[in-house]
């Protein structure tokens, strides 16, 4: 290219780290059962580390069968004796109280979230934690209005909900699960992902402080084994899971033939579609946000990009230019755009897909940025010259890797976009309103964003088609999976 913009400059930002002095963390965490901290009967603990430094932050209890039994028992007792007898208005008061406490401690929550997960402080501060509080506020408001939400259907709570949350948005996904469950009148046993338990355990402290009746929310930590024990427990009435499609399938097999209701929020391989008439600079910004937000650890990440051929060259140029000014590194620095990969395990998965992409003949591009020596890092990556039959275009990578294809006509891109086992989200970029409406009705995806991407709000339902799962979280729709109707 004859005129290349040079993003090197002798004016560079100095480090601007968020202070961590104000947070309160214990060196060892037990299980939160029946409103109290109890030592695990398994007597086992595991370490949680900071993925940006590989240093240990705390030891976390690993719940075994006896611990899970105790937690479900506490939840059942709380349901039978207290929570199911409270009026919706009273339940709402508790949920509001939790929401306010999260807001008050937002700074502490966001710093802990970034330390434990590797996500950048800008996102945990401006997105994860405020949205988590917003979900509690939103569902608190529904607690005493269930009859109005589902008129003439006599909604009733289910009982004990077993909830298993992922490591990509630890606190936010907990809010998505606990808030509607409590509003609908259920009690909860929750297991956060093993690499990111800390904000869940801080939430347990908030729950104590809010005076929620003992046993209404129980938090047990551990690996997949612990989750399996929860799912299979006979006193559980409802299973809510967010995570990989592989694990989702195992859970669905385990609860087959039982009365347990389920919500599954699983993987995705979203198509982000740019038409030639789109506002290109903003579309490029949206693509960057769509795939590199939270290091690409987003189930609805816009990981497949479809560019109309007539604007292909210019879109690629703009994407590459934009990538040059992404700051990669210390998640605690207020200027960082892309933080650390959540775990060594996930980094290996991503690196393997990058290898596969190269072997498939796709062309890789990464900006010149440097990454720290310690910790788990992956530069923002894009692949061009990708075919629909490439594995990098078909399988969920769950990292900062974008696979780019071109298209010529509307019909072609709809076919390609829907040609995936997933169906969680999609994005459309065009200046023409009629085109947007045509695509939103034809794309088989739970969420379709138009001229924006990755926008979330508690009032808006979220969930997928096909192997992306079933049931909806958020909005009025998010209450339904926690209720039964006469």
């Amino acid at each position, binding site marked *: *290219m*004859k*005129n290349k*913009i*040079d*993003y*090197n*400059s*002798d*004016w*560079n*930002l*100095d*480090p*601007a780290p968020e202070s961590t002095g104000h947070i309160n963390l214990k060196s060892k965490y037990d299980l939160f059962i029946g409103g109290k901290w109890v030592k695990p009967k398994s007597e086992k603990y595991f370490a949680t580390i900071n993925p940006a430094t590989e240093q240990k932050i705390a030891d976390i209890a690993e719940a075994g069968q006896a611990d899970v039994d105790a937690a479900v028992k506490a939840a059942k007792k709380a349901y039978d004796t207290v929570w199911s007898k409270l009026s919706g208005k009273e339940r709402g008061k508790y949920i509001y109280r939790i929401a306010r406490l999260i807001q008050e401690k937002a700074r502490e929550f966001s710093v802990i979230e970034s330390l434990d997960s590797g996500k950048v402080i*800008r996102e945990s501060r*401006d997105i994860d934690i405020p949205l988590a509080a917003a979900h509690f506020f939103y569902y608190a408001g529904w607690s005493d209005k269930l009859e109005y939400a589902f008129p003439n259907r006599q909604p009733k709570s289910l009982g004990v909900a077993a909830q298993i949350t992922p490591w990509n948005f630890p606190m936010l996904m907990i809010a998505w699960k606990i808030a509607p469950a409590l509003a609908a009148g259920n009690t909860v046993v929750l297991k956060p992902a093993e690499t990111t338990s800390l904000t869940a355990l801080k939430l347990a402290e908030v729950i104590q402080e809010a005076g929620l009746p003992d046993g209404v929310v129980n938090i047990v930590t551990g690996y997949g084994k612990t989750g399996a024990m929860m799912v299979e427990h006979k006193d559980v009435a409802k299973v809510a899971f967010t995570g990989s499609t592989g694990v989702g399938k195992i859970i669905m097999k385990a609860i087959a033939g039982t009365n347990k209701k389920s919500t599954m929020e699983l993987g995705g391989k979203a198509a982000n579609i740019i038409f030639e*008439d*789109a*506002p*290109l*600079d*903003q*579309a490029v*910004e*949206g693509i960057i*946000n769509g795939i590199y937000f939270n290091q690409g650890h987003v189930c609805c990440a816009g990981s497949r990009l479809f560019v109309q051929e007539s604007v292909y060259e210019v879109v690629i*140029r703009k994407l590459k*230019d934009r990538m040059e*000014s992404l700051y990669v590194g210390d998640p605690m620095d*207020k*200027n960082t*755009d892309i933080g650390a990969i959540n775990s060594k395990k996930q980094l290996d998965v991503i690196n393997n897909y990058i290898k596969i992409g190269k072997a498939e003949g796709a062309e890789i591009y990464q900006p010149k940025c440097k990454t720290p020596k310690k910790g788990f890092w992956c530069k923002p990556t894009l692949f061009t010259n990708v075919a629909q039959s490439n594995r990098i275009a078909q399988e969920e990578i769950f990292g900062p890797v974008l696979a780019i294809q071109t298209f010529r006509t509307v019909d072609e891109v709809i076919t390609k976009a829907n040609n995936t086992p997933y169906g969680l989200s999609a994005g459309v970029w065009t*200046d023409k309103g009629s085109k947007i409406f045509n695509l939103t009705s034809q794309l088989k995806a739970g969420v379709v964003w138009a*001229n*924006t991407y990755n926008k979330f709000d508690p009032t808006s339902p979220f969930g997928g088609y096909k192997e992306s799962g079933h049931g909806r979280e958020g909005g009025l729709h998010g209450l339904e999976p926690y209720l039964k109707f006469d």
Partner: protein
Amino acid sequence: MAEKDYRLSPRVDQVGIQDRVDRFTKRSVKNEAKRKGLYMTLNMIDLTTLEGADTDFKIKQLCYKAQHLHDSFPGLPTTAAVCVYPNFVKTAVNQVKGSGVKVASVATAFPSGHSSSEIKLLDTKIAVDNGADEVDMVISRGKFHSGEYNFVYDEIAAIKEACGKARLKVILETGELGTFDKVRRASDIAMDAGADFIKTSTGKISPAATLPVTLVMLEAIKDYYYETGKMVGMKPAGGISNSKLALQYLLMVKETLGGKWLNNQWFRFGASSLANDVLMQIMKQESGIYQSKDYFSKD
């Protein structure tokens, strides 16, 4: 005559522009980066007075300030230029002689731009003949809104020719254009017609410069550079009165156009009160404490 159909200029999405701008307003500029950014800002200011009440004395004071921002603290740069009405150009040129400070003159029936072509050309010629290094012209917004893009283009091209060696800044008056789409269109016309700089505002209309509107213009400059290889400068003017905001503008330039644009050859602030706030911040960086506004001269 323009060769392009400017109705086909790239579209701009308002929500997307705001999203991008939010990244800049959340950046944190500390320590040495802040100090360097503040010095750069001083050196990019077109110190401006464009009042009906301007007099030779006022102009002289402004010119002195431009060269001696805060003499009790040595080592500070001068401003880039002073910006005045055409009838004060001669005075200003005499005052700044040899200092490196440029003299910019508004022209073409500033600020409304409503006059005949003859008068606009004469206005420009007088400024240039009196020694102006730079001319800040306004586009005919009325003709622009009527879709007479060729008129707007031809007028800019004619003024550019009249400028001779003087550099031409073209003021779009974005506060009167209404949408980002129109700002982009006007930017494309101005650059194609020969603008050396594109500039947001006269300072007489609100809103004047904003981060989003400046970003739209920077993106236009970038596309033009890729298309032609020609660098065009950017000047946001009006409404930029504090250091924090100025640094956000500089970050936006850095991340959109790169380091080559980060000097007063290619980027300017049109401002009257920004300099003092920057001086206060520099003194705070040096001494650790804020000084009273009364320690900085108001000219």
